[in-house]
């Protein structure tokens, strides 16, 4: 293994480990759940990606091939991390439905779409009642 490839692998490992550390530090220190959610879901994923690229480079340098498992782990982690973060945010929105002040405000004047649907359903229900009584 030449020294350039060795330095590249070492750089990937160090940068990946640093990003994992930053993600976990953000999970510990940030004030609210929504900001705590985005620290590990972005930073830790890119850190694991760096470690996986380093492992792939090392295996390619030593054996001349890339194992299927590493590609599968990379694919699976990068596919599932956004889905997990989205589901956690959705569950948090619905647990905090009662006290709306603790949620971050959406950009426009409306409510969050996941919560606003229920209000429109309730409005249409109450709007349907006089129609039914007229009939």
């Amino acid at each position, binding site marked *: 293994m030449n*020294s350039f490839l*060795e*330095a590249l*692998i*070492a*750089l990937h*490992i*160090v940068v*990946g*480990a*640093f990003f*994992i*550390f930053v*993600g*976990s*530090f953000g*999970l*510990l220190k940030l004030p609210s*759940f929504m900001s*705590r*959610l985005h620290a*590990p879901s972005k930073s*830790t*994923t890119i*850190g*694991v990606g760096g*470690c*996986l690229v*380093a*492992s792939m480079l*090392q*295996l390619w340098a*030593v054996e001349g091939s890339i*194992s299927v*498992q*590493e590609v*599968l*782990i990379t694919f*699976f*982690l990068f596919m*599932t*991390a956004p*889905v*997990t973060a989205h*589901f*956690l945010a*959705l*569950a*948090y929105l*619905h*647990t905090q439905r009662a006290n709306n002040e603790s949620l971050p405000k959406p950009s426009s004047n409306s409510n969050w779409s996941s919560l606003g649907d229920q209000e429109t359903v309730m409005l249409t229900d109450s709007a349907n009642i006089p129609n039914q009584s007229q009939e």
Partner: protein
Amino acid sequence: MISYAVLFGFVAISVALIMNLWRLVVGPTVLDRVLAGDTMVVNMIALIILYGVQRNTTLYFESALLLAMFSFISTIAYCRFVLRGDIIE
């Protein structure tokens, strides 16, 4: 050079795991604990991969793959349980 980098990675990821464990114990809500557990599994995958780099073997990558799949499924199941009160309707 790689051995020093792997040592640095071991130390950094171990400190990160301790911080995740702190959030898992303290966490004000249930979802904080779910998030901390999910992050702990991701850090464990990185630790297993670094161990594979250090030992120069591909023996442990299947366990990392299994951990990735099961952490995703368990997190989704827990979020669904919090959302709906049921996992499979």
